[in-house]
């Protein structure tokens, strides 16, 4: 996904001289080397200094540039939170904060490097938009949106590298602010975003072997959330399942429950999130998710 991001940003930057990237001692790798070589003035490495990374990005935007601020999600969003809130959110500047290794994808780095609450934190800021693509292809679309919009700040939640492609056969294209059906069924709808859409697809496959007709949705735009789309999904399926790599508060799961309550939804609604606990396990990304109940076995026990 990082590679898809850097390739796309490089392509966008070739066409638009207002695109800058400010990094804090970490490189998006891939095509970013080309970006840095060809446009050295538009590549700024501030060192390990996330607050000034956001402040400089804000200053660039105040002069009409389209900056991307890029580093590990916890540092980009948590360390520099007040800069993200005041400089970007309050001033409503079109800066994209790219948080990499979001969720618990840094599965051996420990809790200091795991952004389990990033959606709640970014989502609490007025004017902030949040995009969480599920695979490298969707990351291309999301990055293009970020590079061309002028509406305000965006938190772009990116995983790391080597994620599988999930959307090559999607029945719908990426449209900012809209749910994206990757497949469409009539009985069950699995809503998810980010790289755990992979797990959502596994759940859907399993339910289909049980004879159910299943929709799978990539809810890539977490803010503004497609409330109308979720209302329709709740109305048109007997069962809705939310799978989310995020703590239980402030993410897609509680918002879906809220919409279900507000619209008097009649379906069965199951939500699966990380627990409200720090993770002290190490292993693969799947191992960490499983430690908090985000595994095919656990989910199937409850939903089938």
């Amino acid at each position: 996904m990082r590679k898809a991001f850097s390739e796309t940003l490089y392509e966008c930057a070739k066409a638009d001289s207002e695109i800058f990237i400010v990094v804090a001692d970490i490189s998006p790798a891939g095509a970013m080397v080309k970006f840095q070589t060809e446009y050295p003035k538009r590549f700024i490495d501030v060192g390990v200094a996330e607050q000034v990374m956001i402040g400089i990005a804000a200053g660039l935007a105040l002069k009409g540039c389209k900056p991307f601020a890029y580093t590990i999600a916890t540092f980009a969003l948590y360390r520099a939170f007040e800069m993200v809130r005041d400089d970007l959110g309050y001033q409503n500047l079109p800066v994209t904060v790219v948080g990499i290794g979001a969720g618990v994808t840094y599965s051996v780095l420990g809790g200091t490097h795991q952004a389990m609450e990033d959606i709640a934190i970014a989502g609490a800021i007025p004017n902030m938009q949040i995009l969480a693509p599920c695979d490298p292809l969707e990351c291309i679309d999301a990055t293009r949106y970020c590079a061309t919009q002028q509406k305000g700040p965006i938190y772009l939640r990116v995983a790391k590298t080597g994620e599988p492609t999930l959307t090559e056969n999607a029945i719908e294209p990426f449209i900012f602010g809209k749910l994206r059906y990757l497949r469409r069924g009539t009985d069950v709808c699995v809503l998810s975003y980010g790289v755990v859409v992979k797990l959502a697809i596994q759940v859907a496959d399993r339910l289909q072997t049980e004879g159910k007709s299943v929709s799978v949705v990539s809810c890539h735009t977490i803010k503004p959330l497609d409330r109308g789309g979720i209302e329709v999904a709740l109305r048109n399926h007997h069962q809705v399942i939310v799978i989310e790599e995020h703590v239980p508060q402030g993410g897609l799961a509680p918002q879906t429950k809220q919409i279900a309550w507000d619209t008097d939804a009649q379906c069965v609604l199951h939500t699966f999130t990380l627990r409200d606990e720090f993770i002290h396990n190490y292993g693969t990304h799947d191992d960490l998710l499983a430690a908090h109940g985000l595994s095919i076995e656990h989910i199937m026990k409850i939903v089938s």
Partner: protein
Amino acid sequence: MVVDTLGSTRILIDITAAKRRCNKFRRRILEVSQQVQALHIGSAYSCVEIVDCIYFELMQSGIGGSSPDTFLLSKGHGCLIQYVVLEELGVLARRDLDLYCTPGGRLGVHPDYGNPGITASTGALGHGLSMSVGMAYAEKVKGGKGLVYCVLSDGEVQEGSTWEATMIASSLGVNNLIAFIDNNDLQALARISVSLPSFYPVADKYSAFGWEVVEVDGHDSEAIYNAVASRRGERPLMVVCKTVKGKGVSFMENEPIWHYRSPSPVEYQQALRELEKAQA
């Protein structure tokens, strides 16, 4: 215009006019202070000459009254001085200041981006220098000739984010950035020299980070002007301005209470008399 010993020319400022303006601004701030409570009058008074010099002596004028230069007040709590200067320049209307901090008005205790003449929303300390570095850098990359002027408080220099910006500024080569510290040595709670003596010497810290540094009397308009006009210009410039909090009104000077307080009607009259006397 004079020729100095090195043979270069300098334009000396009209010091009488500067003094007259600054006195007028202090009186206008006093007037506004009768409308609402809590306005950081002492913080505004300590940087009157600095802000006046930037707007009236240093910033270039451009087409249609706009300037290619940028001014950012990082010490947003002192923004009454910026408001009254913008009023003088016709950027803000008298009505804007009449409605200061009231329903229906658009000016609050801290400057808000989007209001006329306001470059960025500040007030939360430690944000302005980073944004100024970003703006100065953008200006250079885009080939603009504009300078970026940024005024910091000495209290906000204690923020770690300010030091991140200090370190990166010279590395990025933003020699079009000119910053000022309003060094009145008096923050909300205490004297810096007493509570945080390691703050000093402050100028040396900026030199160590690759800045060009000058120390001046921050109430001497000519000294402020010359510090900028005679800079070498290869690196970002920090003008450390020694100032007095509450400068211009005897009972406000160096009194921490005037960080927050508005004058009572009696204090207002007394302050006005002092300023009128100084003007005469």
